[in-house]
């Protein structure tokens, strides 16, 4: 498998002296689906700014597909890494949606025909066909978010980096966006996402990095969410489905792995029932309530 991103011993302080990143080591393979979590101010956005060269790092601390990022030409870099920031208003800076989505491809030096093609493809990808002439200001928040994504997709990057893609969206727009991101990942694009939305996390990640200035944890979502010490330390919580099943185990549900999403829950329940006695027994035993209390307390930040 090819290494898409490799960060080695990255340390960064802002010019005013604020330390933001310390000794970061990260390796992401091509096609992976990565989420980076961490409390407000943990350095997620700062890390992303290094991944596309906006903030400069020393030689060979950031490698993209085996190449030192600092040595890449702009046109080359933006073909490899596309980044979508949180606030869509910061990224839609041209007068029309067409201009915005065409901005990257034009800077890549593509010819007019190809630029138009790419714009069309990117817009249909996010479900905004026919929005070419619309002014960003008249779009709803969810539409703006999708337009900002299209403006990066049009460069057809192999790595897609998203900073809090689901924030401020209504549930449907959120579900739509998750779908789009997953489709892109299935097409082979490596996706790296920073977010606070733990309920969406399992849908968007195979592997998770927990950042709090340093990398303080790494693993698949299940491993991360089982580590209640880590969660507490980094202001995190487990997804509700996960917590729910943890509660069910206190009621006697017996399984070694807890599901993280509804779909997974259905699958696990079926498997447990089929492989076992044909049914699951939930009952109250002596310690049920104490266990529940203890468990919930371990997740409770108060």
């Amino acid at each position, binding site marked *: 498998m090819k290494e898409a991103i490799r960060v080695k011993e990255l340390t960064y302080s802002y010019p005013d002296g604020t330390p933001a990143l310390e000794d970061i080591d990260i390796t992401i393979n091509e096609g992976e689906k990565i989420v980076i979590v961490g409390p407000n101010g943990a350095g997620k956005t700062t890390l992303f*700014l290094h991944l*596309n*060269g*906006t903030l400069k790092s020393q030689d060979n601390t950031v490698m993209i597909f085996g190449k030192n990022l600092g040595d890449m030409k*702009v*046109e080359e*870099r*933006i073909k490899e*890494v*596309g*980044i979508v*920031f949180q*606030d869509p*208003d*910061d*990224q*839609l*800076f*041209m*007068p*029309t949606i067409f*201009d915005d989505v*065409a*901005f*990257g491809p*034009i*800077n*890549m030096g593509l010819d*007019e025909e190809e*630029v*138009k093609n790419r714009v069309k493809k990117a817009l249909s990808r996010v479900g905004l066909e026919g929005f070419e002439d619309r*002014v*960003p*200001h008249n779009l709803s928040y969810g539409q703006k978010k999708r337009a900002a994504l299209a*403006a*990066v997709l049009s*460069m057809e990057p192999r790595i897609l980096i998203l900073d809090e893609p689901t924030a401020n969206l209504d549930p449907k727009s959120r579900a739509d966006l998750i779908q789009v991101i997953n489709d892109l990942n299935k097409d082979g694009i490596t996706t790296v996402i920073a977010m606070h939305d733990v309920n969406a996390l399992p849908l968007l990640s195979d592997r998770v990095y927990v950042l709090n200035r340093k990398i303080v944890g790494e693993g698949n979502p299940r491993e991360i969410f089982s580590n209640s010490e880590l969660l507490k330390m980094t202001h995190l919580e487990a997804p509700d489905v996960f917590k729910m099943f943890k509660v069910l185990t206190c009621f006697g549900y017996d399984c070694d792995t807890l599901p993280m999403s509804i779909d997974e829950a259905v699958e696990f329940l079926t498997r447990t029932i089929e492989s076992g006695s044909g049914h699951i027994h939930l009952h109250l035993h002596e310690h049920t309530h104490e266990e529940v209390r203890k468990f919930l307390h371990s997740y409770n930040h108060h």
Partner: protein
Amino acid sequence: MDYPEIDKYASIDSPIHNFDPRAKIITFMVMIFSFVFLDTITKALVGLGIASLIYIIAKLPKAFVIHRLKVVFLFLFPLLIIMPLSVDGQAIAQYHSITITLEGFQYSFLVIIRALSAVTLALIMLGTTRFDITIKALYMLKVPGTLIQMLMFTYRYIFVIIDEFQRMWKAMESKGFKLKANRYGLSVLGNMIGMLIIKSYDRAQRVYHSMISKGYTGNPRTIVNFELRTKDYAIALSMILIALLMHTYHLVL
């Protein structure tokens, strides 16, 4: 605080709307510069007449133009009062030491008419094209790229910042604040403007990040498809001719 809605009626269909944006800008600018330098009231009135005629052809709603002309008129109105009193010349009325002169009247009248025709023309030029297309046309006309980009981005962010300011304003009002021109009012307003500056500065930083992550190097590159047709040349030529004749007819005739 209202959004700028200069191109609200850009989607109407009229000969002026269909006029090529580049030709439109050149033609109207020549006319505007010509009309603001007309030196007699008669000529200025002819200019205003021509501007009104073009306005009718452009089919723009009355309210759109009247409302904006009114603002300009009110701005210049003091001239009509001060100049007749202050400019020397033939008295048309006298009260003690106060003299009202014909020349003063004429001069202020001339200024106002020139201003009104210039604004009418500008409103037609801007009101019949989407503003982003006007900017792109300026780019095609070789206005320096740096300025074009600044115009474009500033125009875009005016809307974002108006929203931002409205939200701040509403938050203030809901805490019982009313702006008055006293120390307290101005110092609170100062804080608000300071906050607006800080937020905009941070936003500028983020906009810059997102631009360079799309390969931005400071050069403007846009795709524009304008096509000059015979019709456009014809309209442009005849209008420019009129503009020039207003100043030179006495040499030709």
